[in-house]
């Protein structure tokens, strides 16, 4: 099992609580919302939460788990605040949902406003991305531990390309620096998006880049990059990934990933919430969904039910700690 939180045990507790709750939740009165369901995604078409929600929606509708037509609407802008404000301004609305992604936690933190994640009615967290640190194929460092030593000897000269400032990639670099000790300082080069960051890396301009596994594999296979650490608790069993050491094995206590899920409007009827709990569980049990998750090397851990609010708080607190670490918040 992959632990995505930095607080030991939190995910396991949440999962246990979640699973324990599925049975009673089903026994509760469940009520399906009427009419079409609109899921607001806070980024442009083709971004990760967009792809995840479109896949989930198609499985829900195609397999007949959900009869209501599901529409994905991209409400981009302001680090997902446009989408969040849209959904938060409709308390009790049963037809509007929001795709949960990292900015739901991080944007209010970085903007110095009150957290927004707890204003929603959480419905479920059911996808995680798993991350790999890639280095240049001919780099003298063959693993993350060696890279960190080079950084120790050459302050700020080891560079990592990544997407937006304060985002997951910069958080990873901050965690690596913290795990390596105070005297290790690297340079982060922010970009407008993940594609731009990968291009900078592939052009040989930086030592490292952090990417998700599905993004990393083609570059590893083509010999354009060398994987130096996987940021999961344990090595993955897949043939192509089994040889990649975890950061933990290399003496750097870094595990990190992004979480995705679904959020309901504030004050959502508990009966509708419970209905979603059951539908999310049904989704994650379908063959189609499991094939999608494993095919794209995603984490498919499910957090639903009574343990979910605590898990959300755990995710939030982890992000507060990391953002404070990298100086994005005070």
């Amino acid at each position: 099992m992959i632990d995505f939180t930095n607080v030991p045990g939190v995910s396991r507790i949440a999962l246990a609580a979640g699973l324990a709750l599925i049975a009673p939740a089903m026994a509760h009165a469940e009520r399906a919302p009427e009419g079409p369901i609109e899921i607001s995604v806070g980024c442009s078409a083709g971004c990760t939460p967009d792809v995840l929600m479109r896949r989930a929606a198609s499985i829900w509708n195609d397999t007949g788990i959900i009869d209501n037509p599901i529409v994905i609407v991209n409400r981009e802008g302001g680090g997902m605040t446009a989408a969040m404000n849209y959904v938060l301004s409709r308390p009790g609305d049963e037809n509007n949902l929001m795709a949960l992604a990292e900015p739901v936690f991080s944007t209010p933190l970085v903007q110095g406003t009150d957290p927004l994640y707890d204003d929603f009615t959480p419905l479920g967290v059911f996808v995680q991305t798993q991350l790999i640190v890639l280095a240049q194929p001919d780099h003298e460092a063959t693993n993350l531990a060696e890279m960190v030593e080079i950084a120790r000897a050459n302050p700020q000269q080891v560079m990592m390309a990544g997407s937006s400032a304060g985002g997951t990639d910069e958080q990873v670099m901050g965690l690596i620096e913290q795990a390596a000790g105070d005297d290790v300082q690297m340079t982060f080069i922010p970009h407008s998006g993940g594609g731009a960051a990968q291009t900078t890396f592939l052009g040989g301009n930086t030592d490292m880049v952090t990417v998700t596994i599905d993004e990393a594999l083609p570059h590893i296979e083509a010999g354009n990059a060398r994987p130096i650490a996987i940021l999961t608790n344990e090595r993955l069993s897949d043939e192509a990934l089994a040889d990649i050491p975890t950061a933990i094995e290399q003496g750097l206590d870094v595990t990190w990933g992004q979480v995705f899920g679904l959020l309901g409007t504030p004050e959502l009827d508990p009966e509708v919430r419970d209905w979603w709990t059951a539908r999310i569980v049904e989704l994650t049990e379908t063959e189609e969904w499991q094939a999608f998750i494993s095919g794209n090397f995603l984490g498919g851990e499910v957090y639903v039910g009574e343990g979910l609010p605590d898990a959300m708080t755990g995710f939030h607190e982890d992000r507060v700690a990391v953002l404070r670490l990298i100086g994005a918040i005070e």
Partner: protein
Amino acid sequence: METLSLIGMGFGMVLTVPGLTAVVTGVLIGQIVGALPGIGPSTGMALLLPVTFGMDPALAIMMLSGILYGAMYGGSITAILINVPGDDSSVVCAIEGNKLARKGKAGHALAVAALSSFAAGVTGTIVLAFAAVALSAVALRFNAPEFFLLALLGISASASLGTGSVVKALLMGLFGLLIAMVGIDPIAGTTRLTFGFSQLLDGFDFLPVAIGVFGIAEILVSLERGGTMQPIVTRFRDTFLSAKDVAFCAMAAVRGFIVGFCMGMMPGAGSTVSSFLAYGVERKFSRRPEQFGHGALDAIATTEAANNASVTGAMTPMLTLGIPGSTGTAVLLAALILQGIRPGPTLMTDQPVLVWSLIASMFVGNVVLLILNLPMAPIFASILRIPYAYLAPGIVLFSLIGAYAVTLSFFTMGVAIAFGLIGYFMIKADLPRAPLVLALVLAPLLEESLRQSLLLSLGSPLIFVQRPFSLALLVVLLLVFLMPLVMSLRSRWKARST
């Protein structure tokens, strides 16, 4: 030879009933979403994504990419006819094309737009088919320092884009840069000049600003003039270009193609930056630079070639590296992922049928679009027969709906109206509006790449001379800056010596 047989295989896939249906459907939808302001190609593609789930992956990708390049054709129609750019990349087309339409040359403008779009689309596809792998290796050598110098080259054109005073043009360029500062700092991640409005976190969206300062502002001015404007009639024979026009525009289209294709290959630049950069470059090379801002036919040729070339350019990193260079290609990649195909450097060898049918479909799609656009130009242009007093409210409505559609919020509608008033006062004060939007478009690239360059070099400006491509661009830039200076000094010296 191998490439030719692969293309042959691709055509075998496209020239079937399902293949042609997919391509024609794609380009038709592209044409429509392109013409509708605010609904860009990526929105159109996202809407059709669910439809593609059950389809053959090659057909799905042929249809979706048809929307992407079809939109580049569609955008110019509304831009030229009613001065409302259908999408970001046709703003230049609105600046110049609508001036031509007002002079009764809408047919010419539409024909030049369609022909240069077609030429760039087909040439780009040929380049993509034969040189994608080699080009993407070269493109990777371009990074922040080179982007910065390219953006600087483009923004330097703002001084000359005014129709009168250079000082006024520079001032408006600075105003554009100032507006571009609003939002989240791209490097530090902190907010700037948002005054607590969360709607301003992403800064001013470019399209509503352009809709305001061009579309709405000009309607305000013309309504003030009253009913003096005559309906404009465009006949079929007006779309025929003279050999002189074609020769005049050909080189502009070639330059636009080169700029567009190169910028398309760079992530983050996209078709809008390409079209403006090409406009700026053309202003330096044009034989009739004085027409810029008053309806320059070669400006339309260059900018339409540039935005179409940038779409095929963006396919290069997508097919050879699996990296999205634009939001449009990001949707294409998402479609592949949803089909269970992992894009990456091995895509061309792992999925030859898919890649080569896509390339073949782009030839077919561009032909369909040309057939659709060239003979239809007078029909589209007949909208101008409607008396302006009736047309104007429709244009305003269309503009505002477009501004709303950009973010699905009323705030951007307000932005368009506010910039409509700003644009009105700019016209009244004889302040040029093109430098403002040029600066607004190029500022993010300019700022981000400069700061990335200096991060990469740990603060040393020497990074601009240490990299071969960067050094070459720097020399070009110096020549562009110094040439007019040397020329004027020489003519002054000559004048004195005689």
